[in-house]
């Protein structure tokens, strides 16, 4: 698996880890995401990614977020 591949959160498969690179969202949404712990530089682990909201773990907490939002989060896949 290549390390350092850039993609959006909704493309990260279940079980994979990634690091957030940036947020492609309006001010209000970006603030909300960051306050939940989803900041650039944060490490996340995707727990579930089929249809419907994505389940992930960040900063020790489990969060569910809708796919539309996940598309706005740019991540870098971590090397396996």
């Amino acid at each position, binding site marked *: 698996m290549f390390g350092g591949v850039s993609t959006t959160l909704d493309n990260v498969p279940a079980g994979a880890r990634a690091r957030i690179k940036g947020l492609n969202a309006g001010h209000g949404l970006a603030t909300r995401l960051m306050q*939940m712990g989803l*900041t650039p530089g944060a490490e996340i682990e995707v727990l579930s990614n089929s249809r*419907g*909201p994505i389940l992930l773990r*960040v900063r*020790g907490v489990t969060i*569910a977020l809708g796919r539309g939002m996940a598309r706005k989060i740019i991540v870098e896949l971590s090397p396996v």
Partner: protein
Amino acid sequence: MAVAGNPNVGKSTLFNVLTGETARVGNWPGVTVERKEGVRVYKNKKFCFVDLPGTYGISATSLEEIVAREYIISGEPNVVLVLVDGTAPERTLYLPIQILELMPNVVIAVTKADMTHKMGIHIHIDKLEARLGVPVVEVSAIQGSGIRELLEAILAVTGKKRGREKPLRIDYGGLEPIISEVEKIIKKYNILKMYPARWVAIRLLEGDPRLEELIRKSGKADVLAKIKQISSSARQSIGRDLGEIIAVSRFNFVDNLVKEIVVRIAVEEETKLFEEIFQHEIAGVVFSSLFLVLFFSLVFTINSGFPLDVIFCWLGWKQLAELLASYSLLGLMDEIFSFINATIAQLLESYNVQPWLISLITDGIISGVGSVLSFLPLLIITFFLLSILEDSGLAARLAYSYNSLLSKFGLSGRAIYPIVISFGCNVPGILSSRTALEEEERQQLIFSVPFVPCQARLIVIIAFATAYFSSSVMQALVMFMVYAVSLIVAILTSSLFRRFMFRKKEAPIFLLEIPPIHKPSLKVVWWLTWDYSKHFLRKAGLIILSLSIVTWFLLNHGPSGFTYNPKESYAAILGNFLAYFLSLYGVPKESAWIIGFALIQGFIAKEGLIEAIALLEGGEANVKDALLALGLNPVQAFSLLILFTLYVPCIPTVAAIKQEIGKNSLTLLIILYMFAVAIALSLLVNTILSILAV
């Protein structure tokens, strides 16, 4: 003292341990955000605690955050008690840091001490206290430990013996020069004096719509423009969004802090089978649906026998069904009130009290009071079970399962609760609309949920279906169609309302924290439940009572005064008036006024529709014959059934709507909307089917 913290951090539990039964629930002025206050006496001093809404931060991204922030700075609280979740310090320390940048009088309580130790997490409290300069106390609300220490810490900060002098200052590196520049401008022009200048500078660079609004209102819009210019040129030269840099710096501060003070003995969280089921798409929805249906069937069966009694009926166990209904809470209350009514009526008669006064007291006031009180058990049980769902962490998972389905109608997964509950009764359905993720979603629910047929309407539906349609297949089909039409109207109302009223094309933003599943604290759940129910009873009770008396007047008074003969009542006159438009359905003239009268009776309670018709068809032996005596044809019966199901919410529902939506004008709008939809739809159906039937 203000109490702040992330959602799921254990704030309600701690609040209730601190304030016990002194807690009062209300609203923050002017908004539908809940406010809880309570008192604790310690060492002969009275501690007043105000619970702030659970927030992840104090930027202005939501109404809750604005309310929390403005209360903190209002000068009223001497101390802000901020909660940090011991099992998730990395994320939950963000809020106290934000608050500390705003005001220095903070006490930090690290909650869930019991779970923290179990999970192998150790937090160096002293170090944290040294780093931040404020008292930090480890508590376990469930076990009740650390409470005294907490109260001592609060006393110390109030007495200036411990704590910080000035707000926390975080180093924002490259942004510091820009922050200083903006700070100078703020001080020079006296912008927003009640807030610390540096804090305002940082907030404005991050972007804070609320502060900007306040600055404009104070007439300093030109200064704001200057500051915005500085901010955008900084963004240009740095190449990154300033808000992002600032938030990241704060989190870096927290991360460094955590590295110093938190030690984790590596414990991998086992994902139990339970968790995996919810995560799986189809299994999740199926399991959740089963769970919800069983759960709320239990609630409603205890309350009134429904839906278990309906099931018994279908199985042919009619006597068992009746037994169940009569021994349910509602059945018992019914008996009690009938008994009270009869006894008082007799008593008053023996004193030769005027008949109209007797009727007012028994049929008007006592029945009215009875109808209010009869909601109490239902509300208590519903809130109780909902609180358990919420506290245990199940609610978040259920919402997750339903989100994909509901987002197609402009709702989030949280809307499943109001919808399911409304099948039993609309009143708790409307009251539980607070679980919505957004204010817009909440309002959508209040507008659409009254269309969901409750059990009272089911009684009307069953009565008409069995009277006018002979084969069980047709009966089932008719009932199914009525439910289908009602649900479609509800769903369309929600999505169209969202699209045109709020101009939002996408479903509510689904961003939800999924807490670990744990045993709910029954004490807390019970306190919350009782407070909620009392609140409803007080506000809505008055409305229900007064509307009941007005309707009683219409039903029992005519131009010639009080009367026992319904034909002479104002309601009958109104019924005759409605008869004109009922003729559009082709309803026979003799029956039209009866249906009109029944519509008015149905406003009090939907099942009253049937009772009214039975009463007015002059002593027909049973309900079925009374309905047939109306002389309708099957098409008319079906169309009128749609009218009956959708036309208005019952009085208690109206009271609930008024409580949740606030304004009288909007409540009236909802009623008129439902009425219009009901008439339009039922007339349409009637016309089309009549043409087809010929």
